[in-house]
């Protein structure tokens, strides 16, 4: 039986003026508390302003030597205007405390989602092991976010759910909620729909761009999305396989776009990808002494360079750019992630306007594209075949 007091907090016009749409269990309690505090503070503020204006007009100075009565003390009045505000603030404290205990103690049957905040993007890891830059939730299912950071302090703030927590390196903080409203659907890159998820703790240059989206889906869409995330190469709706360049472009639009660009415009935090493939690159730092890269180098060397820059960005730094890219672990570890890297590589090459034909396509060898199969060129499978070598990279 819903708490009758919550009837107060349907999205009344006052709420719409002050607050974003309320779409989680926390938001219902919050709105009620907000209206209570808003009412009482507005009332006291009105008293002060009205009394002040009355006194200014009524007791304006008639002459410089005007005598005024000597009133200096009134104990009952003092007690009254100490007691009443004290009672009010204690009530407000209790309202806040009740909501905070609910915010701070997750339910036991929550669906855990791991959030890793890094400099200027969020990585959400779902129970089926797949990882994505956006947060997908199922309506009505209590969800628990285990939040940590991989470098500086960040904040995970969802205004529509009225909840927020900081991400701290070397520590897991938690927020939980029950999404109760479907989020506006994704239309295109310009208006991605969903609820906003901001980073509220200042974290440097890209802090203001560190925004991602929360999509609350019903059961079918959520399950379909989970399958799609597990295997990005197959279009979950039509069942057809998506070409590599398209998948690579989606990876770019999700996270790389916050620092790199494909238009060649100057001023982005990281180097532009336009014409990157086989271009003249000079390094301000490289972990291998005397390492150079020129357009005449082989595909294999270029691919090894890009793979290393994705997995361990600090290894080689292009001149004129800071060493501030966090590693992207989602492109290594198993066959599917390797193939994701090749999709990204395909997109990088296509931005350099080079035709690209993938060696392994999901149609020719579908078994390769389930999450746990080992890639024939993967270091372990190479070692198993006795070829050894550091996985020199894959001829493409």
């Amino acid at each position: 039986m819903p708490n009758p007091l919550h009837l107060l907090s349907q999205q009344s016009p006052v709420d719409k003026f002050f607050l974003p749409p309320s779409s989680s269990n926390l938001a219902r309690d919050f709105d009620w508390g907000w209206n209570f505090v808003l009412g009482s503070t507005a009332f006291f503020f009105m008293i002060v302003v009205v009394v002040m204006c009355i006194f200014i007009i009524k007791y304006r100075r008639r002459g410089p030597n005007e005598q005024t009565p000597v009133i200096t003390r009134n104990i009952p009045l003092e007690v009254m205007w100490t007691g009443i505000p004290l009672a009010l603030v204690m009530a407000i404290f209790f309202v806040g405390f009740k909501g905070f205990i609910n915010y701070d103690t997750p339910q036991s049957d929550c669906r855990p989602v791991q959030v890793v905040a890094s400099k200027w993007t969020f990585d959400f890891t779902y129970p089926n092991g797949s990882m994505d830059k956006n947060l997908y939730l199922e309506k009505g299912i209590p969800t628990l976010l285990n939040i940590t950071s991989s470098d500086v302090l960040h904040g995970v703030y969802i205004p529509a759910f009225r909840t927020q927590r900081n991400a701290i390196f070397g520590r897991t903080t938690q927020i939980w909620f029950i999404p109760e409203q479907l989020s506006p659907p994704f239309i295109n890159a310009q208006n991605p729909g969903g609820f906003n998820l901001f980073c509220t703790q200042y974290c440097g240059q890209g802090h203001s761009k560190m925004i991602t989206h929360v999509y609350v889906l019903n059961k079918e869409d959520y399950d379909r999305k989970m399958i799609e995330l597990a295997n990005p190469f197959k279009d979950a709706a039509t069942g057809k396989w998506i070409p590599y360049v398209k998948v690579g472009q989606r990876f770019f639009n999700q996270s790389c776009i916050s620092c790199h660009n494909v238009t060649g415009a100057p001023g982005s935090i990281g180097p532009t990808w336009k014409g990157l493939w086989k271009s003249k690159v000079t390094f301000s730092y490289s972990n291998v002494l005397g390492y150079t890269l020129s357009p005449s180098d082989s595909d294999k060397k270029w691919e090894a360079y890009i793979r290393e820059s994705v997995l361990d960005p600090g290894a080689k730094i292009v001149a004129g750019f800071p060493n501030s890219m966090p590693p992207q672990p989602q492109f290594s570890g198993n066959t599917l992630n390797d193939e994701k890297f090749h999709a990204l590589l395909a997109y990088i090459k296509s931005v350099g306007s080079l035709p690209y034909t993938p060696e392994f396509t999901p149609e020719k060898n579908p078994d390769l594209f389930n999450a746990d199969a080992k890639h024939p060129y993967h270091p372990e499978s190479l070692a198993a075949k006795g070829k050894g070598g550091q996985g020199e990279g894959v001829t493409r």
Partner: protein
Amino acid sequence: MPSPIAHIVPFKILLRVFFALVILTVLTVTASEFNFGRFNLFIALTIAVLKASLVLLFFMHLFWDKPFNAIVFIGCLIFVALFIGLALLDSTQYQNSIHQQQAPGVQHKPLHP
């Protein structure tokens, strides 16, 4: 000799306080030899507080001074206790959510693992 501006500490008191301090130091060092478990820290701190109050009362003649100076000092200790107390209470509360790992910035071969 006009009335002295401040109280002059008799030499005997100075000497006795000095010897008391030396004895307390020897006491605290020997006390640390034995293993009283949690009480080691408690004993060490009570002896330190004793020595500190001796220095305060006699060497810094708070004993004969205007009481307001003592109030200032005790007020300062209250705020020190408030600061340490609440910061400590909070850090012990959230220790379980910290990943107990070797700090990534300080890598060295741990001794006899």
